[in-house]
């Protein structure tokens, strides 16, 4: 087990399985299938062809580990809408500072809904080097992340 400490963006305490994007996570491209009002989108399989780490891997209910998000500025709104559909990851864990695009979606969920998604950022490069798809993750309200 390794422990990491980051900044709490939205507090939360949970256990989930890691889904790890070692490269910039493109919200619009990744959540395209999740946004389809079809059963195939329910588990939010990553639909970003350019993301060789997690293309096709289910993200709903998982601990999404990433450096930061990239791409379209629809990203934050996409997070908000995917949240409304109940298809978001259980939490998002950033190795770098959360980027403004996804921060918008995270804050919208926090302020405008009753189902905020816990988010921790600034976990450091070592966190992203260490964590792998399928590992077990515990997160705590003080920004501590345990990876098993």
């Amino acid at each position: 087990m390794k422990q990491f400490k980051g900044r709490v963006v939205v507090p939360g305490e949970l256990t989930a399985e890691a889904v790890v994007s070692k490269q910039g996570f493109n919200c619009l491209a990744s959540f395209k299938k999740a946004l389809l009002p079809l059963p195939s989108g329910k588990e939010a399989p990553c639909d970003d062809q350019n993301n060789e780490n997690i293309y096709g891997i289910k993200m709903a209910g998982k601990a999404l580990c990433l450096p930061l998000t990239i791409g379209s500025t629809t990203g934050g709104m996409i997070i908000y809408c995917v949240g409304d559909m109940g298809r978001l990851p259980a939490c998002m864990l950033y190795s770098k500072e959360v980027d403004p695009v996804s921060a918008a979606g995270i804050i919208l969920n926090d302020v405008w809904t009753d189902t905020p998604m816990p988010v921790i950022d600034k976990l450091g490069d070592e966190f992203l080097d260490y964590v792998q798809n399928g590992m077990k993750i515990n997160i705590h309200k003080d920004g501590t992340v345990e990876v098993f």
Partner: protein
Amino acid sequence: MFLTEEQQAILDGKLGETKAKIMKTLIKYGELYGADKMVPVTQEYGHLVTNAGVISWKAAFNLMQRLIDDGALPREKFTLDPRPYDKNIPCSPVEKLIFKIVYSQQKRYEKQLWQLGKKDEDAHTCTCYLKEVGNIPKKGDILSWAESSAVVYANSVLGARCNRNSGILELFGSVLGLVPAFGFILDENRKADWIVEVKTTKKPEAQILGSAIGMKVVDQVPFVKGLDKFIGNTLDEKTTSYLKDFGAATASNGAVGLYHIENLTPEAIEMGENIIKEGAKTYVIDDAELERVKASYPVIWEDPNAKPKLCFIGCPHLSLFQLIEWTKKIEENLKKNGQKKVTVPTVFTTATAVKKEFDKTEYADRLKKTGVIVSFICPLTYSASPGSSKVPVITNSNKFRTYSTARYYTDDEIADFITKEVK
């Protein structure tokens, strides 16, 4: 964050619960990045990224309805990204049916847009900064915009100040006429983290150069050296069209919100190399590097050898200069390949205001004769429909490639491809 009395009153609910929540959202957004105050939006018009009545974006439309119902309307009128479909674009009956389902919120959203303050009927384009559209910030203007390609253009080519805001947040900034002071709003964050040295033997394809830089620097600021010798030192229509496509690729293949081009863009001219941070990293781009980047794009057609059924050129929307240049290019290639009309159904996308100007030129008729369709749509949203995502599409846009199953070709490759017999 320091708030003025007026701002504190909004947060305390003196102007209603909805505006209080908007203020709370913007404060949280700013405080994440250490903003110590709000600054007023100074650009005459906003720009929204939310462009389509997508069935699964209901949460966004419900939120917009709340703004309308509670009178929390933007202080400024706005332009917004292009509409998602156009009946003039060839598609099967099944695709048509799926469009109707996927974009079932379109009518509702169109009504909301007028209630919120859409600038005019020509307001739908990702290239709002073109002179025909008329949403053109001045140097130093503070914006509350979204749309990655427009934000990077406004910051870099026009010297305006805007963060990479997300959809809805840009609307919130317009409602209060305020944005938190962080990121590209502040001088210190407009300095370059990277020096990019362009050492190619010929003018690099804008879309691949932008892609390479976006993938390398991700969200940091590049200072590009050696490009001015290929594209000149004047921000004329030819050069700004190049920078439009270059920037869109940096912003979609990475998360670039601001770039500087040596001897060309306003802050690079004003500050020279003083705009480069101490200890900036260096990225050298030569012919081999561009080839490597291009070869890395995956081909995800169900049948990689399928004949293309559609070609999109114009993501971001084409400028008037590009429409004319592409008309000439298609004509030249048709002649070279012994054809009268394009052999792959081809759509040029542009703003309706630009199309109106194009239609006044001799080139409009000439283009029509080649069989190319000119449309106002967003190819990206078009192809996001599940009915269309399986159609083998080709494009010269790196942004479009990133968000769809479309296959990328350079300008020259695609002009040749669509004007010769398809085998």
